[in-house]
């Protein structure tokens, strides 16, 4: 039988063998918006910049307290130019990324990473890009030509399932065809082959 003796599949690393760099020699913090209430930041700080800032702090006679993320927010409909300090997060040693939970759907956000002194002075090491988180409610803005009252909006919204994200509920993970393509195969560990 022509195909009765298939050749062995190769177990283990199918396409790897690459050690990825831990960093790219950059000094930057990048901000991403995950959902209406969550930001994600990752960063890479150059050692010489970090030590230079710390040296400057010491020369000013100040005392380093901790490394922090300083989070800035702008009101929902205002531009990124209106950013104001919202809160700080203390960083654990060695952290290079962080999920930041905010109550800020539709608002613009920015994050600085830096050093906070015992007396409150803040010395930034890097400033992130600005991210506007997605909205999670009806817009207040109406189109004059295509008027839509709140009543009509809610009727149409109810007809659409009231913003139900049915096809994307958690069952998405379990029921997604790409996941279902080989659910049984998935329990065959490659290294057991």
């Amino acid at each position, binding site marked *: 039988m022509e195909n009765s003796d298939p050749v062995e599949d190769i177990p283990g690393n199918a396409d790897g063998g690459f050690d990825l760099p831990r960093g790219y020699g950059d000094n930057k913090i990048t901000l*991403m918006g995950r959902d209406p209430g969550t930001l994600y930041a990752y960063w890479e700080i150059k050692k010489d910049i970090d030590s230079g800032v710390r040296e400057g702090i010491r020369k000013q006679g100040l005392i380093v307290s901790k490394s922090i993320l300083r989070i800035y927010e702008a009101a929902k409909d205002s531009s990124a130019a209106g950013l104001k300090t919202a809160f700080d997060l203390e960083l654990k040693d060695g952290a290079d990324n962080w999920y930041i939970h905010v109550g800020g759907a539709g608002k613009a956000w920015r994050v600085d990473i830096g050093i906070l002194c015992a007396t409150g002075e803040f010395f930034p090491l890097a400033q992130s890009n600005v991210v506007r988180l997605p*909205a999670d409610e009806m817009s207040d803005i109406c189109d004059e030509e295509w008027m*839509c009252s709140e009543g009509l*909006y809610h009727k149409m919204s109810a007809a659409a399932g009231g*913003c139900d994200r049915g*096809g994307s509920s958690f*069952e998405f993970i379990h029921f997604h065809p790409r996941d279902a393509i080989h*659910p049984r195969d998935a329990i065959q560990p490659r290294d057991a082959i």
Partner: protein
Amino acid sequence: MAKGYLSLVLHAHLPFIRHPEYENFLEENWLFEAITDTYIPLINVFDNLISDGVDFRITVSLSPTLIDMLRDDLLVSRYLKRLDRLITLAGMEAGRTRPEERINRLALMYLDRFKQAKYVFSEKYGNDLTGAFKKFQDLGKVEVITCCATHGYLPFMDLHRPAVKAQVRVAVDLYKEVFGKIPNGMWLPEHGYHPGHDEILRDVGIRYFFVEAHGILFGTPRPGYGIYSPYLCGSGTAVFGRDMESSKAVWSSREGYPGDHNYREYYRDIGFDLDYDYIRPFINGCGARVNTGIKYHRITGESDHKDIYERQAAMDTAAAHAEDFVFNREKQVEHLSGMMDRSPVIVSSYDAELFGHWWFEGPDWLEFLLRKLHSSRDKVKTITPSGYLDLYEKYPGITPSQSSWGWKGYSEVWLDGSNDWIYRHLHKMAELMTDAARDHKNATGRSRRVLNQMARELLLAQSSDWAFIMKSGTFDGYAADRTRGHIGRFLALHDQLRTGNIDMKMLGETESKYNLFRNIDYSVYA
């Protein structure tokens, strides 16, 4: 004009998986199973309807990676070998099961299906199924659209707009090569929309795209037609919202049709059920049991006990479910008509692979549905998004809200503890690629080949499938390996470009292995 319209959209996509270095590769089976279980049955449905004079409209999104794989000589030859093996197995099953009449009928059904699949794939469509979809499009029945180049999740590329543009432009270029025109629409991967990306679609001639319902409902200004009309973004590109009610009827494992007890059970396959020595030649090359596609049981119920599958009962159920779907759409249209001054359009979109592969009777359901709608066309008529956009002179404007069809409606599936490590690399690659394209304008020779392969590696690393698979926890090792591999090769090639010390052996091997988008032009990033 009908009282209301139904716009069915099937999104067909698989990540680019092609491993010429191995004779057998487990994950390549995803494509082979989808061809036999989904793409060929759907093509058969469309051919049947056309030959019977049934008027229908449907939209099919073919992702560029899928288009490339369907036209790849190596994968096609491997598919045909696999199909031959299945025909052999089904023939053996027809003999083995002869004493058990009910099972034997099923074995013969599979034998017939596999032989038919081979005929359709090879003889009818010349080993290139994209030709079938082109034919349906030319006949005006199927609107074939496409997706981004490698199904990259665009909201997380917005920091580097050239990367978004490249995902779109490379996709459109391939589509033009295969279908001879610019696609009317684009399926944004995972329905991931970020405000402003509609401008990029407009720039390449895309007329419309889709978002999840809340992308419209939370859009600005407030949408007066809900999700039952398209809207025009500031760019002039139209956006349609996905209807949840009709989608859930098919999608939901709890409320949807595919869970009916008469339908075929996916998880009982002879690859697992039969004697190992008997099935060994037909399962994985390494000897691990896998699905063969031959399944003899119906869902039956929640318990492990499964009755034998009865084809006729399953067909009767599929017909009843099609009737139910039509009845509910008619009711939906009636309800919406009271609130709208124009005919509503209901956009029902699904992953194509749901039909046939997971829900075995899905293509039959679709055929019943389209026949039924044809015979009651005054109430609800099928339409393509382009067709609906031609109905009225004006459409309201909107800026859709950032959204996706992932869990909770935003980006959590593609950004959590299981996969967040990839983004610092993907963003850096986009930055390096853009700079390299700008620094090496009009590159020729080896430099050009390096730049083009860098573009392929970046695109492949960006595939949303890898982050999704890492999150889902199945095949996560493969997804992580693939991501690391594309990042690693990209960085190595970038370094070679920078130093001028190009490793021609590595370049040749990489071009040969990851050979998609043969006519890619790296300057798309400039």
